[in-house]
């Protein structure tokens, strides 16, 4: 399967501020989550992908096109920008309809498709109201509606779940899943990692304008297997447990929790830790109550990778 995004050595900066450092990444069809902390370069990468900005260095192809001002690409691309900007004097459906008309739709077809898109994002009842009266979440969904209305092959959405209430977020996640099931590709960015994890297994991690890791969440976890993992244990006598754990060769650090009932353990080899922990706990007679791993989520993977 050929990559929908092929970026090689991408660099883009704003004066002395680096937006993208040296980003080389290929993105395959399907849903891909672009994750990274604020300022990582996600939005810059998206702007380069949709041709809003030209890279200062490197090359990029999106669906085979050079994106800057590419009319061929824009016929097949839907972009939902992060910025909260709409034509305020218009109704939601008129906003989507007029953008469809710019894309070559007839008035009748544009009206029909705009209404369908507003329905898909859950704005049927509000679509004839002016967007200036919309809530933040409704405005976000309107931006999403204009991105999907022309049934593009690729939808690029910058922080599309930001500002949505939990029900709307659920709806939009389902919408992305439906689009993927229809054969569309979706690239969405987020710094709220569990949102992405709910939606896709495929992630691209960016930090300081560079690719940090790419693949499924599991693959990324394997990639960091050499990095220390953290485990939290609550016990009746955490001090006693901590003193025994210090002797274990794979334990790098032990810290008592502020609650006085837990121990934070950092280990080089989490599998070995789990094998030996039972006997250590028994020797310590510390009354272990629970054991949990802090890196069970993508958030923890991300924390490790970005230091």
């Amino acid at each position: 399967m050929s990559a929908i995004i092929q970026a090689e050595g991408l660099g883009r900066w704003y004066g002395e501020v680096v937006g993208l450092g040296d980003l080389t990444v290929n993105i395959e069809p399907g849903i891909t989550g672009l994750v990274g902390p604020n300022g990582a370069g996600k939005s810059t990468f998206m702007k380069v992908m949709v041709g809003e900005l030209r890279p200062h260095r490197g090359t990029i192809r999106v669906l085979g096109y050079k994106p800057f001002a590419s009319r061929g690409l824009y016929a097949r691309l839907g972009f939902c920008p992060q910025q909260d900007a709409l034509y305020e004097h218009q109704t939601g459906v008129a906003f989507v309809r007029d953008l469809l008309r710019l894309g070559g739709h007839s008035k009748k077809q544009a009206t029909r498709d705009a209404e369908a898109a507003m329905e898909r994002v859950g704005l049927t009842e509000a679509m004839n109201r002016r967007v200036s009266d919309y809530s933040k979440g409704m405005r976000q969904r309107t931006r999403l509606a204009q991105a999907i209305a022309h049934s593009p092959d690729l939808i690029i959405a910058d922080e599309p779940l930001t500002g949505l209430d939990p029900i709307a977020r659920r709806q939009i996640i389902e919408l992305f899943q439906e689009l993927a099931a229809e054969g569309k590709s979706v690239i969405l960015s987020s710094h709220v990692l569990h949102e992405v994890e709910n939606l896709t297994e495929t992630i691209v991690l960016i930090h300081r304008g560079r690719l940090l890791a790419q693949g499924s969440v599991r693959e990324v976890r394997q990639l960091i297997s050499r990095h220390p993992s953290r485990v939290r244990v609550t016990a009746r006598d955490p001090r006693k447990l901590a003193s025994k754990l210090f002797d274990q060769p794979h334990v790098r650090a032990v810290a008592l929790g502020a609650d006085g009932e837990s121990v934070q353990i950092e280990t080089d080899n989490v599998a070995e830790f789990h094998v030996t922990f039972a006997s250590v706990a028994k020797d310590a007679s510390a009354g272990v109550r629970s054991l949990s791993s802090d890196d069970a989520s993508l958030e923890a993977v991300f924390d490790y990778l970005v230091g």
Partner: protein
Amino acid sequence: MSSLIAMPRAAFLIYRLHIGMILGSRRSLAAIGLAAIPPLLAFLASNFAPDNQTENGIFLKLGTFVLIQFVVPMLSVALGVGVIADEAESRTITFPFTRPIPRMSLFLGRWLAALTAILVLIASSCILTALFVQVKDRGEPPTNEVVQSFLQAALLGGVVYSLGSAVVGVLLKRGLIFALGYVFAVEALLANVPGSSQSLTVQYHLRSMFIDKEAPIWKFLEEAELIKFLTPEEAMTKMAFTTAVLLVVGCVAVSRKQFVLAA
């Protein structure tokens, strides 16, 4: 869709969209206020002007020094500089720019929409000024030919100034400041400095279109400013050429420029 069809179609759609935006904007209220200045002054001058001022004289002075020298450039800058800059500032430019249309259609459509508003306001201002100059028993009122030549010059000024402002708005981040600086420093000052440097201004060309060299009322201008005006046809040709150049520059600039939008 080929560019030949896509461009006028997209420009027309953007024109319609932008006309709606202009009508609903606060800036258009300011523009209406500007356009109201010459008729208001005409009314005041008609009631308070000294006895030696004729109707024709009041109209020519207001037309030259208020309408064409002040209102036309200010109004054109106010509505013209934001043709693209407003869309970039409001960060909505992403939407038309990620549609399969030639980028220059955005410039053309939005400029034509702004120009429509500018020309309607200038024409209204000029005609109302002529109507409001009413001083009984003080000579003839301005003839239709005089009003018409003023109107032509004012409308042409609206075209050139608005297009220049739109281009400045595309090229510079603080286009409004630059455009206002140009209007005040070059058009208002240089156009009134005696000598041939006047010919560098748009004002000189606009004046060339309505000044009747044989009329005694204009003798003072030629004598005081030590300059020969062009014929109306020469002035019109030069302004048409300037317009064409500005149009090309604007279209190319919009097609090539990257707009860095804050999140």
